[in-house]
Each structure stands twice: as structure tokens, then as C-alpha cells.
């Protein structure tokens, strides 16, 4: 039986909504297997070490695939913890804060992501990465045109838009990441050739349960 263990990390500036994304996902996703969500935060919503949600699917005698979804603490001072959580990541979801006042923080955090990836031996240009602009429900947010202008010519276009607080766009973001993650996992573990798991089944097993 092949055991595959993957790690997806929610990264982004403090208070952008990473923990909220994870909690929403825990409620909305219906993968074949879903563990308890581990939340570690201080009283004022701020993640201290990490949050974690394990999901996965299993075929008896054949494959046992698990993805652990982590969030990092966004506050600047927890950089060494971020680095530790980031190590051996297979995919990243960058949760940016759409508010106009937060654009500088988004940029700093994105640069910090690139730096830390390098430090743990990963390359931001190569790792599967999805960028989500969260808090679309608020006023005074960066417009979609501006986002298109900034991100159209990057490897990460299209971005996803969300309002994690209202549960909008969080599952779509995760699905986009799974789509970007699948080719790398397929290459390493021969998902389709050895186990007959196509991108479609991969997504289905991890987002909505099905019987087989």
C-alpha cells in the first residue's frame, strides 16, 4: 500500500483570514477522511504556533493519501515558527487581505514567503501556489482590475477571490491549489498510472466524499 503524506500551508500577513479559511474548509469540505481541526490561537484570534486540519482518502490495500492543511502565524515576530511550518511544504495558499490599507503588508509577507521558501530549500517559482484575495465583503478594497493588472503576467494568475468569514471562495481556493498540486504529486507517485487516480478523482476524493 502506498502511503502519501502531503502538506499544504496557508501563508499570509497577520489577520488576513488564514485561520478562518481553515475553519470554513473544515465545515464545508466533505472529503473521504477528515480529522479534527487543531486550532492554536491566543485570545484575540491570533495564531500562536499553527492550525492544522488533516484530510485524506484511502483505498484498502492500495493507497492512503493524506493532506495536512496548516496555517502559519502571520504576525511578523513569529518568523522562525513560519519557517518551521513551511519546511517540506508541497503546496502553498497565500491569503492576502483585500483592504487597501493592507497592500503593503501583503507585499512584505509575500516577499517573506519567497525568502523563507528559499531557506527551507524550496523555490517560489516551482512550488504549487494559489493566491487568494480575502475579505472581498469589505469596502475600500483593491479592485479586480488592479489585481488583474498586477498579477496577470505572473505564474499564479488567475487569483481567487473570497470572503472567508462568509464561507465564500474558500473551497474554490483549495480546489485551485489541488489542481496545481496534482501534476507534481502525479509525477512523483504515479497517481494516474499506478492507481488510476486522475485529477478529477483526486479533487473529488479530497473535497466531497464518494463511495467506492
Amino acid at each position, binding site marked *: 500500500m502506498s502511503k502519501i*503524506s502531503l502538506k499544504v500551508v496557508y501563508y499570509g500577513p497577520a489577520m488576513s483570514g488564514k485561520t478562518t479559511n481553515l475553519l470554513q474548509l473544515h465545515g464545508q469540505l466533505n472529503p473521504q*477522511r477528515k*480529522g*479534527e481541526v*487543531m486550532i*492554536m490561537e491566543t485570545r484575540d484570534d491570533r495564531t*500562536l*504556533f*499553527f492550525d*492544522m486540519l*488533516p*484530510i*485524506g482518502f484511502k483505498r484498502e490495500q492500495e493507497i492512503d493519501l*493524506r493532506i*495536512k492543511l496548516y496555517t502559519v502565524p502571520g504576525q511578523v515576530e513569529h518568523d*522562525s*515558527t513560519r*519557517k*518551521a*511550518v*513551511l*519546511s*517540506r511544504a508541497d503546496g502553498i495558499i497565500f491569503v492576502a487581505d483585500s483592504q487597501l490599507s493592507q497592500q503593503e503588508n501583503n507585499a512584505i509577507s509575500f516577499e517573506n514567503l519567497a525568502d523563507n521558501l528559499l531557506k*527551507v530549500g524550496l523555490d517560489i517559482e516551482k512550488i504549487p501556489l494559489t493566491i487568494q484575495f480575502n475579505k472581498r465583503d469589505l469596502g475600500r478594497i483593491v479592485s479586480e482590475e488592479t489585481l488583474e493588472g498586477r498579477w496577470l503576467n505572473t505564474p499564479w494568475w488567475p487569483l481567487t477571490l473570497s470572503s472567508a468569514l462568509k464561507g465564500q471562495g474558500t473551497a474554490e481556493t483549495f480546489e485551485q491549489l489541488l489542481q496545481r498540486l496534482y501534476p507534481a504529486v502525479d509525477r512523483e507517485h504515479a497517481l494516474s498510472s499506478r492507481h488510476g487516480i486522475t485529477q478529477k478523482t483526486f479533487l473529488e476524493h479530497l473535497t466531497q466524499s464518494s463511495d467506492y
Partner: protein
Amino acid sequence: MFDARDDLTLEELLLPSQVDSAIALLSRLCGTDVKLLHEPNSKATAVEFNLEIVAWLGGDLPEQQRMAAAKLMETLLFHAGKYRLAANLHHNATEANYEQLKQQHAALQASEARYRALSESLQERVDSQIAVIRDSQQKLYESARLRAVGQLAAGMAHEINTPVGFIASNLRTAQEYLSEIEEAIKGEPSPHEVLEDFQCLLTECLDGAARITNIIKDIRAFANIDQTDYRVFDLNDLVRTSVQLVTSELQPCSPITLELAPLPKLPGHPARVGQAIYNAVNNALRALSDDGEVVVTTRLVDEMVEITISDNGHGMGEEILSRAFEPFFTTRDVGVGAGLGLSVVRDVAMDHQGQVLLTSQEGQGSRLVLLLPIARASI
């Protein structure tokens, strides 16, 4: 380095004593013995942590009750695991920071050591740099002096040449006139002795003028300060000229004896060789006491021309001898002359692929031998 394993085993999640007391409490709740097993059996329920089965809870009790007991155990493990994972992560992060600090410290120490080594070698490097600067300064000084002397000599030679030219020419005309006068007054009673004397005077004057012309030629040859002037020259001529120039500063009776053997002409820079001979002879003269002597000999030795300048002056001790070729070294008072000038001799010998040998005995005199090849492979 940042590897935080998140699949923990039962042993990593709880201490054996904690497992035991949990199982004891569960047994009491269930009213029958339950235990944790490593292998599944028909009366066991899986206990998971993070989707990984860490044990089976077995006991002879209804399925619903067993599942509830397993769930309770999982809840216990979940909270223990939360703490364990946070602690591991914290440990790893701290360790990584410490590791980074150690690396920074090591890098700092290395650069400190580099700077220390640099500052230690700095004095040495400054000293050797000073020596280089001194050496080139000395060479510059020598060549500037040489050029100045040369220019002065050339200027003087030119100025003197013209009047000497018409003096000589006039004297010859005067001689002719005198001969005509003698012819005209032949047989007449006249003071013939006076005329004869007159003729002698004029001849002597012409001799003098000829000698002045020769000296000027010598000076010109010597003053040919174009150091790149490379040609075939007569070494004996050069020796004579150089010696003449040195002694002209001295008392009328020269202490220098020349013993010059016939030599083939040799290629080289006559101005530089002249300067070397001048310096060597000048040195020898300055070492002399009142009744001292300097002997300059030239001769052919195999394919080399050998010039020897020996004196019976005060000579040099070991220490002075060993430093005699240093550019700035001098035994004379500051201001009288810069250096012994022997560095020039050595440089000239090297330029001409020759050799120089200096021997000396304190109180006995010194002997300098300069060997120059007749044929040179390349210029």
C-alpha cells in the same frame, strides 16, 4: 533542520503512566476491562490521531460503548498531540534560531580572524612597500642627476666649442702670416730667435686648442645621456674619458694609473657604462688617504671584457660590504653624495648581462671587477 514530524505514535503522545491511568478510568466507566492493543481483533476499535491508527481499543463490551470509549481516548490524544506538536515546533524553531546564531557567530569569528591576520601582515607590507618606493625614488634621483649633469656638460661643451673653434682657426692663420713674414724678411737682420719663439708659442697654443677640442668631444660622449642609446663603443676610450672627468675635480697630480689592454669594441649603452665607471672610480678615490693610489685596468677574459678598479684606501668591513649595493646606502655624510653609487654599477652590469664583483679588506683597500660580454645574444 525544520523538520517537524506530525505523525506521532502513542508513546510519543502520552507517557505509559498516563495511558495506564486513562485505561483504568475507562475500564471503570465501562464496567469491564478495556485495554490498548497493537494489533486489531474482532473486539477492538481503532484509535486514531491525525487520521493515523495509533492503537486498538479492545474489551468485551457492546460496540457502541467500545466506540465511545475509543472516541474518548482519541479526544485525549488530540489534546495531548496538540501540546506535543506545538512543543516540537517550538523546539525546532528555537533550535534553528540557535543554529543560525551559531553560524553567524562563526562567520563573525572568521572575519575577525581575517582582519587580525591582515593587520598583522600590514606592517610587513608597508615596510616592503616603503623599500620599493625608496628604491625607485633613488633610481629616479640618480637618473635626474645624471640628466642634469649631462645637460650642463653638453651646454658647456657647445658654448666652449665655438670660441675654441675660431681661436684654433685664427692661430693657424697667424702661423701662416708668421711664415709669410719670415719669408719676406729673409736675409734681413732681424731677431730670428723671437720669430722662432713666436712660432713655438703658436704651435703650443694650437696644441692646447686641440686638447680643449678633444676634452669637449669626451664630455660630449659622456654627456650623451640618452640612456637608450645602444651602440658599439670603445671601452678604453670610455674609461679614459670617465677617469678624466673624475680627476678634473682633483689636484693636478692624478693618483690614478691606467693599464688598458687593446680591446675589441663592444655593444651596449656607453652613457650608462660611463656612469658606472665614473661612480666606481669616484668611490675608489674617496676611499684614499693622502698617498693612496687607484689602478684601473682593462683586459680581455674569454668572451668578456674585464674592468678592474682597485685602490689601497680604507676598505670596507663585512657589514658595509654586504650593504654596498643598496641604493640608499652611504658611508659619507648626508649631503655629500647619495649612496656609494654602486647600485648603478650593479644595474648596468645586469642590463648588459655582465657581472660585478666587489672585494674589500678593512684598511687594505677595495677591488671592484666589472665584466661585460663582447657579444650579446639579444639587445
